[in-house]
């Protein structure tokens, strides 16, 4: 480990400012909204019927991501052991 306490001290980072993380979050929300409604402005050439649903990829991405994280969290009940379990 090479610690250089001086290398970053004194510098101000935008992300450290109060409110910056909120800005990132709301920008992401804005981007998502724009992308969701972008579905109205192009012609789809899907392989499956379900892709015709308005905002299908958006809903799929959100629902399954939340599902993935929450079910993985539940998996911890069965799989989690101490970090020296095999030692």
């Amino acid at each position, binding site marked *: 480990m090479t610690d*250089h306490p001086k*290398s970053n001290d004194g510098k101000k980072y935008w992300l450290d400012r109060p409110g910056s993380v909120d800005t990132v979050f709301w920008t992401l929300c804005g981007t998502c909204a724009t992308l969701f409604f972008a579905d109205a402005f192009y012609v789809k050439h899907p392989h499956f019927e379900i892709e015709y649903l308005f905002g299908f990829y958006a809903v799929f991405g959100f629902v399954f991501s939340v599902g993935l994280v929450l079910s*993985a969290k539940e998996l911890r009940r069965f799989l989690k052991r101490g970090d020296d379990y095999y030692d």
Partner: protein
Amino acid sequence: MIEATPPGLILIVGAFISVLLPGRVRNVFMLILPILGFWQLTQLEHGLHAQVELFGQTLTLLRVDKLSLVFGYIFFIATELSIIYALHIKDPVQQVAGLAYAGAAIGAVFAGDLISLFVFWELTAITSVFLIWAVRTEHALNVGLRYLIIQVGSGVLLLTGALVLRHETGSIIFGHIGIESLGGILIFISFGVKAAFPLLHNWLQDAYPEATVTGTVFLSAFTTKLAIYSLARGYAGTEILIWIGVVMTGFPIFFAVIENDLRRVLAYSLNNQLGFMVVGIGIGTELAINGAASHAFAHILYKALLFMSMGAVLLRTGTMNGSELGGLYKSMPWTTVLCIIGAASISGFPLFSGFVTKSMILTAAAEEGYWAAWAVLLFASAGVFHHSGIKIPFFAFFAHDQGHRVKEAPVNMLVAMGLAAALCIAIGVYPEPLYALLPYPVNYVPYTTAHVITMLQLLAFAALAFAVLMRTGLYPPELRSTNLDTDWVYRRLAPNLIRSFVKGLGELRDELARWTQMGVGFILDRAFQYYGPNSWLARTWPIGGSALCVLTLLGGYLIIYFI
């Protein structure tokens, strides 16, 4: 002349020569070797070369066609990048092992028969284990042993399968094999071990995160992609591969979400990416095989880039636990940016490499009507963005600032990461040169309005899910822990069973000893009772008694005689 030398040998022989050279000359020498090998590939004619007769069999050490070439090219590029990344290393064990390992993998890719393939297959195992042992701890020694047993076991299966296949078909040519025969099935399982099929996968997550900082970068490129190449060569269009691949893309992402060691997260994500390629091979159409080959090409680059960035973090901070990292963008801004490029590539953002390769496999699945496979691949695409695209950069470089104030990664590491990142973007922006290398002509157009928007929707909303879960506190925190996986079977269950068995044997032996002792004691007691100093037999008998005995005996004899 140039076709008489298998390209892998350049690296293998070079590896052993390099040890004799002094420091800087050795570095320059090692940097030149992959360039030489790459140049050789550009000069080769398609066909079978370097054939030798051995025990009545024709071994083909150099089979050149588009499938072997595309893997050959990327293997040499990966070797060069890994060498640059490891230039600061002075450990000759790692240098020789890395080069020889890459050479063995390239040798295997160009092997035209199953026996040559077996030789190089085993050589990859034997050389690569030193990249784990080079950590030089008892823990690494154990991990390496487990890794070696499984890898060598895969080679033994391959050789057995090859011999059975030769008996069945009379040929050892490494072409399409299929799973219709016993030999074919054995070789299929052998490839499956190296490709980390479900339930055969855990050597990967066990071993890769435990290798040296630079060793993991080497490891991530070759072994598993050699298996992908071998499956594409021998089992294209084998339908069961679709479903094996589907499971591979799905289950590792759950483990990746809860894993704390960030290099192990990448190992799970590697497993998931292999699943995409395996699905492509299983579908077997021209588009699907092109997808699998191009995805392997792109994957080697972005996965190496991600492992490199995490290696830099490990080198500087001394830890790889998500629970102890965070805020590193302040001290390692270049590594942060380069890691994010790798993350964007693996996630398949437009203008990055994953976008133009992974989508070929999804389109092939959809075109052939495999809707369930397509749906899981789509889920896995969102999932991979979640753990490799967001989790890795977020917990290492952002999240909670853990106060690490370290130096930026060494220059050679930054150069290697920079080159890998440049290639990731180049492939994403201008995929035609990669498409030209693929086994079949490419009619696929990645950049359509629908594809760009739908992919962005999928990714943006997956990111939104992450953000919402973080803000609501529902996201599982990074915790120091071990998560059980199939290695539990051979690291816990089997040793416990053996221990119980040995303990049982010991108890049985003690019990037998007790019985023996009791038996012997009983006999001794009886003997003592009858023959001991105070026993009935040892008593002093009066002379009259003796005379009575003799009289009885003689009387008895007389009676028997008359009867």
